[in-house]
Every structure is written in C-alpha cells, then in structure tokens.
C-alpha cells in the first residue's frame, strides 16, 4: 500500500478542480451533481469552494445503483440511497462529479440516470482522481490529480466527513 495523496495534496486537488470549473464557467451558473457515494462528498467540497469565491452554484446528488450493468455478477443487489436534484436539469449546464474515474462505466450509468431527470444543455465531468484504464470512451474535462496505476490496483479514497481522514491510497494486489 502506498499513500498517493496526503491531506494537503487532497485539498490542493480539490482547489484545482474548483479553479478549473470556475474558469470554464466564465461567470455562468454552475450545477454540480455528485455521484454517490464519495463523489457527492467531493462535489460538496468543490461546491463550498465555488460559493466561497462568489460563484453562482447549485448542488445535487445522484445514486446510480439502478443503472449499473453488473447486477448479474453481484450476490445481492446494492442498497439504494436517494437521489436529490432539486433544480430543473432541463437546459442546465451540469458538471458531474466523482471521486475516481477508472473504467468509465460508472459515468456511463450516471449519464443515463441524469438524462432521466431531464435534458441538460451540456454535461461536463470532474473527477478528483484519474487512474486510467478506460473501457469506454468517456474522458473527464476537469481532473484534480492523475495517478499512474496498474489495472489490478485498487485506489481507495478516504474523505474527512465519511472516513475521518483525507487520503488517497494505492493498494497493489
């Protein structure tokens, strides 16, 4: 196991995400939608930074359990959590937020879920960590940190509010 990001590096990565999103928005409203679980927490932290800097932003949460493509391989189906997007998705510019992008399948599911709420005018993707090894053509526009990993490695993101600490660790199998 090796620590890829310590608390200071995590905070810097979140700052970088907020910077990139803010400059790309060019004064327009920003609708962040975090993907459960952990993407929602990353989104909340980015959201706080955006608000701090006076940006006009809204925050939603998406649970994608019902949109996964791997039920057949699970011994029991995932526990559902609620989604909550209180603003109209129709016509909005949504920035999807997740903690780690790996194969890209989660994002595929999240796009399907999001489009069942309405038809956004544009969707961007922001991730705290890009660890590579995509299996479908999905690329994030905003990235906090790129990590070199092996296909078989596990990347664990811990977040203060959920796990009691900020850290990104690579666990080699």
């Amino acid at each position: 196991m090796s620590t890829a990001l310590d608390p200071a590096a995590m905070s810097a990565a979140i700052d970088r995400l907020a910077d990139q999103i803010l400059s790309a928005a060019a004064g327009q409203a920003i609708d962040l939608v975090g993907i459960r679980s952990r993407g929602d927490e990353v989104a909340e932290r980015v959201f706080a930074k955006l608000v701090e800097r006076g940006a006009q932003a809204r925050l939603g949460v998406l649970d994608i359990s019902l949109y996964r493509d791997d039920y057949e391989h699970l011994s029991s189906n995932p526990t559902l959590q609620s989604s909550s997007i209180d603003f109209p998705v129709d016509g909005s510019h949504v920035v999807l937020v997740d903690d780690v992008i790996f194969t890209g399948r989660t994002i595929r599911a999240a796009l399907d879920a999001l489009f069942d709420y309405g038809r956004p005018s544009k969707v961007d993707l922001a991730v705290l960590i890009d660890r590579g090894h995509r299996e479908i053509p999905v690329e994030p526009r905003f990235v906090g940190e790129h990590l070199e990993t092996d296909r078989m490695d596990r990347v664990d993101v811990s977040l203060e509010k959920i796990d009691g600490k900020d850290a990104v660790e690579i666990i080699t199998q």
Partner: protein
Amino acid sequence: MARKDFLDIVSLDRAEIIHLLDQAEPFKDLFTRSVKKVPALKGKTVLMLFYEPSTRTLSSFEVAAKRLSADVTIFDVPHSSVTKGESVRDTIDTLQAMRADYIVVRHRLSGQPAAIARQTNASVINAGDGAHAHPTQALLDAFTLREVYPELPGRKVVIMGDILHSRVARSTSTILDKLGVEVAFCGPGSLVPKTRFKRFTNYEEAMNWGPDTVYQLRVQKERQDAPFYPSDREYHAVYGITEERLKEISDKGIYVMHPGPINRGVELCDAVLDYDRCLIPQQVENGIATRMAVLFGLKPDLKNELS
C-alpha cells in the same frame, strides 16, 4: 444475502423488513421524475400467474415491473390451458421453459406459491394465497403507516372486519407487530380468532382502546358461501365507518386504511374517501414503490437450468 423468493412476512426478521421499507423510498422518489422508469431489470421476464381474479394487485405488480424495465407477461389463467385441466405443476414447467426470471402468483390455496417456489429457479412472489398471506400488501401498509408515523413502536392499529378469512389481516398484523405496533382485531365474534393480539367484537370498545389508525378490511362477498351478516346496511351500522363515526375519527385525528377495493356504504361511508386522514390513495401509490423494492431485492437462481 439476498433471498430467491418472497412468500410471507413470518419468515422475515425485523431488520429485513426495515431494509425493504428503506429500499422502497428511493423508488417512490422516482415517481415525481419526468421519466419514472429505471433500467434495473432490463431484459428480465416477469410472469404474472393469477389463479384468482385481481385488478389492483395485478396492475400494481405490472406497473412496478415495467418501471424497473422488466418485460411483463400476464398468464391469463381463466382463458388458459388450466381450464382445460392442466395441473399447476405442468404450468410451472411450461413457464420454466419460457425462462421466466420472476413469477408473481396468486392462488386460492394456501401454500401454492411456496410449492411453486420449490419447483422453479425463478424468484416467486406471493401475491396472495388463500387465507394464508399477502406479504406485499403488508409491506405497503407498513410503509404507508411509517410515512405518517416515522416512529412506529407503540402506535396502535385496529384491524376491523372478517379477520378469520383474511390474508391481509394475517400478513399486515404480523408485519406491524414485528415493527413494534400494537395490533387489535375487531369484528363479529365468530370471525375474530383468539390470537395474542387484543380482540374486540364491538366497534365502540375497539375505539375506546385508543387506536391511531383504523384498518377496515373489505367484506369479501365472494368468499362466503353464506353471508355472515344479514345485510350490507346492518354491517355498516355495526362495524362500518358511518358518517357519525367519521366525526369521532376526525375529531381524534385517527387515520383510516383499507386494502381496496372498497364497498361503499358497507365498510366505509362515501365521506371517508374525502377525509384528509384517509390513506387509501397513498396505499395504492406505495404499493408500486414497495413492489419495486421487492422485485429489485430478490435474486433468481441465475443458472435458470431446465429441470
């Protein structure tokens, strides 16, 4: 650990019940979206096998399965080979060959869904068997009551009517009891069995017990060879919610539930349906969300081999 079948309430523990109720909530949230459907059961086949007439339960399951993107086939028993003498066993072998993933069964015989569950790899859901169980009704009742009383333990519910022949009374009382609700039965003496629950044969006595909710059962005219009461009017006067009784119910802020379909002027007077604490419409809506949670929570035996 996921279950293959959903057959009764008795075999579920409190934690499983609470998990199912919790799982139903995100499904209910979907109903306010523009797209009410999710792809969770895409490509799966749900077969409805109803040996008894039903409109509400059948359509509730149908809507639930379709909102999960499953393909739904209704096996039309009254017009099927069953009337030509095919046994249930042979019918199930046929359905098995069709590779159904889920079979929703209603049958007049207690235990028939359980027998079918042993014969097939598909997940079997009991949609009502004889006077035995109606577990999805119980689940939607518990969910509906929990929406108005987030803290269920200590609440009091009186179930009123023909308790003896009612699978709704059996399943709903069991689930409420497991969730810590105090349950009482009220009805004509010969139709209220002695159980561990409080027992009343008089409407006023039951109301003096101080229930938070009155759960009226449907008078099942089709199940009685000889009616147990002289007339609809008399039943209404003795056990029904009359206009006068509705005033008392309203003054005390008591909720009214009913599994449907209602017999107006028998169990309930018309005015109950306009009463703001009448939970019948919520029961119907919650029936879909809870049945989605049940379907999503089961795991068919994925091998699905032909036996």
